[in-house]
Every structure is written in structure tokens, then in C-alpha cells.
């Protein structure tokens, strides 16, 4: 499986990441990308550097155990972000669309509850959402 996991301050280039996932493979029939975008107000993203990339790799490992993925990318940004800035990218490549769609949804649900990042909005720290916990629960 082609894998790209990065924790970075800078913006990411989705096209270059997905081309890395599909490089040298002719068995990929489905590529799903999800981009999370900063909405409404600026955010400061704090993270735990020693843990963040390791946690993202764990989440990718779990997705690869559950679905037959040929490629998987997770990019998460930190630092100061403005409305309309991309903040997170999840990309999954598989033979068929079912696995790619499901794995992408799973990755986002797990990211929300298992990746050590904290959002700060102008009015204060963003609280964890109960619906994120229930969303992750559907995967067992």
C-alpha cells in the first residue's frame, strides 16, 4: 500500500499526494479524497508533535486492516489557519469504490477522536463534540 502521512504547517497539494498514491499501480479503480476546510472563523491548531504523526500512522494501519486499500494518505495541518484554508486531507485508493468511501469516512471519524490536535477559535478552545464520539462508535 502506498502511504503518505504528514503533519505540517504549510498547505498541501492534493493532486501531488493522490498521484503518489496511484503511482506505479494499475489495480486501483477508486480514489476518494476528503478535504476538511476551516469554516467561518480563524483557527489556531495546537498539536503534540511527538505523538501526532505516530497517531495518524496508527489510524492508517487500522484502516488498512479493515479495508483492502492500495493507497492511503492523511495530511493534518497545524498553526494559524484562516477561513477557507484546507486543514486536513484524507485520501483512499482501492480496487472498488465501496472500500475507498468507507475507509475515508472511517479515517475522518477516527481522526476526530484519536489524533492529538486541539482547535482554538477566537472565542476560546473548541470543545470536543459528542456526535464525534458517536460517529466513531459506528465502526465498532
Amino acid at each position, binding site marked *: 500500500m502506498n502511504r503518505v502521512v504528514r503533519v505540517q504547517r504549510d498547505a498541501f497539494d492534493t493532486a501531488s499526494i493522490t498521484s503518489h498514491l496511484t503511482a506505479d499501480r494499475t489495480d486501483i479503480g477508486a480514489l476518494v479524497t476528503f478535504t476538511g476546510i476551516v469554516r467561518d472563523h480563524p483557527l489556531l491548531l495546537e498539536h*503534540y508533535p511527538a*505523538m501526532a504523526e*505516530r497517531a495518524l500512522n496508527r489510524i492508517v494501519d487500522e484502516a488498512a486492516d479493515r479495508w483492502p486499500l492500495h493507497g492511503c494518505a492523511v495530511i493534518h495541518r497545524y498553526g494559524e489557519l484562516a477561513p477557507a484554508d484546507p486543514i486536513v486531507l484524507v485520501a483512499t485508493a482501492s480496487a472498488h469504490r465501496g472500500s475507498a468511501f468507507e475507509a475515508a469516512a472511517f479515517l475522518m471519524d477516527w481522526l476526530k477522536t*484519536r*489524533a*492529538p490536535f*486541539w482547535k482554538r477559535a477566537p472565542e476560546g*478552545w473548541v470543545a470536543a463534540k459528542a456526535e464525534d464520539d458517536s460517529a466513531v462508535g459506528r465502526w465498532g
Partner: protein
Amino acid sequence: MSLKILYFAWAREMTGVAAEQAPLAPTPDALAGLLSSRSLGHAELFSARATLKLAVNAEFADWDTPLADGDEVAFFPPVTGG
């Protein structure tokens, strides 16, 4: 015999420090008791353990996870990435 302690997000703001050292304690629960005496902010943070998450050596851990000399213990709010 010591531990490296890290705080993130509002846990860092409450204690007023991002990192500090502490003597070895058997578990994060025991460590929290020890750290609570350092400042009012520490005491307030560790009085609300139900809302606090933690990691030992950059892995999610529990309040009764055994600690060893040199471990890095991080305290932080529930994560809000993605």
C-alpha cells in the same frame, strides 16, 4: 528518577507551563496528586480528571498505566482535530 510532563491546549494554560519535570510516580493518578500541589492552576486542572485525557510516551494511556523512570506523560483536553 524523574518524569517529563507535558501540557497541551487549556491544560497548558491552566498550569501556566508547557513542560516540567516531576519525580517518578507509580501511575498518572499518583502523579496528578503530586502535581496538584504545585499551583492553584495545577490543582484545578487535576480536580477535573474526568474531562482530562493523557498519554504516556506519546500513546494514549489511562490513569492507572504504570510509569517508569524517564517516561513522558502528557495531559490534554479531549482532542478536536480533523
